[in-house]
């Protein structure tokens, strides 16, 4: 109790003297602010992309692709196989008794970014059950495409990244121009994509096979039944995965690259901030030399003095981290962005901010430790005599 009281008193005295060392103290605040600002700005992209992928995956749905495929694009499911898949047990049934399953198509179509750069966007095909399978899907404006016609609908966020993605615009496909007749939202990756009628799109891009089959599982546990039926059928060579696991896997492959770069840059900058922190805390200890010696002469222990130094470093470092996080958050959180053929919102999540604060605490601990030992060890008489 006495020890805690001492720590409390020494720290309060210490914090009260902070305004006298304002510029020096700001070195830690600015340093940590820069580290966290840069780190979170970079990670907002990984996090945003990650979330978009995770949102797209529903644990109640399963995705069937050709065996070993790592993307829907390089998977091919011939029509006869698709029929066998949709008849398999474990699939939920619609009111009329038909399976809630939809064979889909994925085609990359050349588009222009807003800045004129060439890019690809994803054109998906929805069959008769495409919408029913996706309760998250709703129209925002215009109307749904009519099955069998050469019409498309566009995700509500596509126009933030690509040219010609509004209702009334036309998309050039091999057999002519397809008008965009409506705009939809799903709150996930599909918001950046185009959708048309599966069979009509297949004819246009001259595909003979579907890319994948999406099914709604009867129950969460039906995956085992469904998977067993497909993988033991010699007529099929397919992989089955819970849709949420599928997107989680893809997202991890995607985000590793940026995470490594972001954390690499973050660690280098944090080292710079650490040296700055050491510098500031040594200076603070030497400025406070007399005050510390007086406290020690009055009977305060070495430990509370050391703790007060580390607490000061933490206060400054965490303040800096929070300012950095606030800047990254206000600049980037919720901003529509695109990378590759993904359209998503940059995200500075509470978890990321928590991690940034943790970084700040670690830097403060490392940067405050040695100066705190010096402060605690300095002979009282010497310190009192020093000018």
């Amino acid at each position: 109790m006495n020890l805690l009281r001492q720590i409390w008193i020494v720290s309060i005295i210490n914090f009260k003297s902070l305004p006298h060392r304002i510029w020096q103290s700001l070195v830690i605040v600015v340093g940590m602010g820069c580290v966290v600002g840069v780190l979170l700005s970079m990670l907002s992209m990984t996090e945003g992309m990650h979330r978009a992928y995770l949102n797209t995956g529903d644990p109640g749905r399963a995705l069937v692709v050709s065996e070993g495929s790592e993307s829907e694009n390089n998977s091919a499911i011939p029509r006869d196989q698709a029929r066998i898949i949709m008849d398999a047990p474990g699939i939920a049934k619609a009111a009329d008794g038909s399976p809630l399953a939809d064979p889909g198509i994925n085609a990359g179509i050349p588009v222009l970014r807003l800045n004129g750069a060439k890019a690809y966007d994803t054109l998906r095909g929805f069959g008769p059950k495409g919408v029913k399978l996706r309760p998250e899907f709703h129209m925002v404006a215009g109307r749904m495409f009519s099955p069998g016609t050469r019409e498309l609908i566009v995700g509500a966020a596509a126009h933030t990244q690509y040219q010609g993605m509004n209702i009334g615009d036309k998309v050039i496909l091999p057999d002519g121009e397809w008008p965009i007749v409506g705009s939809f939202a799903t709150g996930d990756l599909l918001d950046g994509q185009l959708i048309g009628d599966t069979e009509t799109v297949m004819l246009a891009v001259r595909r003979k096979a579907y890319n994948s089959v999406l099914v709604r599982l009867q129950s969460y546990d039906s995956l085992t039944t469904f998977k067993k039926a497909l993988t033991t059928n010699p007529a099929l060579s397919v992989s089955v995965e819970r849709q949420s696991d599928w997107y989680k896997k893809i997202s991890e492959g995607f985000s590793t690259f940026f995470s490594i770069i972001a954390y690499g840059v973050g660690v280098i900058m944090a080292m710079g901030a650490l040296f700055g922190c050491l510098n500031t805390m040594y200076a603070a200890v030497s400025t406070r030399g007399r005050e510390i010696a007086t406290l020690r002469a009055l009977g305060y222990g070495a430990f509370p003095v050391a703790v007060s130094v580390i607490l000061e470093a933490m206060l400054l470092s965490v303040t800096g981290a929070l300012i950095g996080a606030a800047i990254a958050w206000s600049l980037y959180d919720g901003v529509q962005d695109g990378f590759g053929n993904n359209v998503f919102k940059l995200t500075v999540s509470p978890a990321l901010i928590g991690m940034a604060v943790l970084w700040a605490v670690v830097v403060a601990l490392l940067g405050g430790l040695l100066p705190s030992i010096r402060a605690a060890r300095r002979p009282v008489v010497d310190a009192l005599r020093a000018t």
Partner: protein
Amino acid sequence: MRYFPLVWAAIMRKPMRAILTLLSVMVAFVLFGLMFGMSATFALVEQRAHADRIYSGARFGGTGMPVAVVRQIAGLPGVKIVTGANFLGGYVKDPKQRSFVMLPDRQFSQVFADWPPTPAQWQALYKTRNGLLMSQRQARMWHKKAGDTFTIVAPATTRADGSKTWTFQIVAIVGDMPQAIGGYNFGNYDYFDKSRPLSEQGKVMEIDSQANDPTRSAELAALVDRTFASSANPTQSITEKMAYAIGNNFGGLDINAVIRDIALAGLFMILFLVANGIAQSVRERFAEFATLKTIGFTDRAVTIMVVLEAAFPCVVGGVLGVGLATYLARQLPAMMPPGFGIPVPTMAPWVFGLAAIAAAVVALGSAALPALRLAKMDIATALSGRA
């Protein structure tokens, strides 16, 4: 230079502060060097791109174009020579360790004569049916040398016998290219093609052509796309210059702006830190500066001394930091997990030049206020210790 002993004494007055400041400046310049080194790599790739080469692929994706398209493009006016290639993507032992092999026909070595493999190495490849030219980065990644076998499991690319395992004989280890960030491998088109199931034979994924007139390659690219627009195999063509232009890489991300912002954040951090150190050092020696001015030192001389004191950590830290960045740039590929490509920073002369300018800006910027304060000082007050 005659001020040097005075400046040195000022720096050595607080050796710990000098060392810590130096270290944080060094860290900031490691970051600066690595970041702009990457920029330099992108610029180099863009600059080295050949104006006469055109890349064509299937406009709407799919599993490849018939090899007949290669011959049709070769027949277009203005085309000098055309090559077709296929790709094999898969993993080595563990699905996370990804690798790929490009399998071009024999015209490839003429279209890409400037690429690292020598004519003798190409000949060696042609002589061994399942031969492979492996680049040094790939060889380091998989611990391979000439004469070894290299096995890729390709889940989406079956052989005629149904297996998905592709084994190659490494005939030579070849040089790397900056644009192939994870290294590259070349195999024989014929071996790959004849090993596929009959239904998949005779296809190419990419067609590269060379224009007779480099100034008209953009027109030629448009001509190729126009020729095939209403055929069964619409193409999407792009000149090498455009393909390697920074705006078209990195999926729409303005990578140079990102690099610049990160480097600037690092610089701002140390500008604040160095400026504080100098301000403090000058404050501590205010009376001494007053003495110097009293015995005849001019404002100019005093300013020079302050600038020199600020320049010391910037110059030494800058040189050490950029030096360390140069060293790290070389080690970077080996430090990354297998299959993870990171653009290897190129330490172009302009990177060093930019670092020198940055160091000068930080030194002058941090010396400006203290120097101004010294110039305006009231000598009598300062001498009396009341300032």
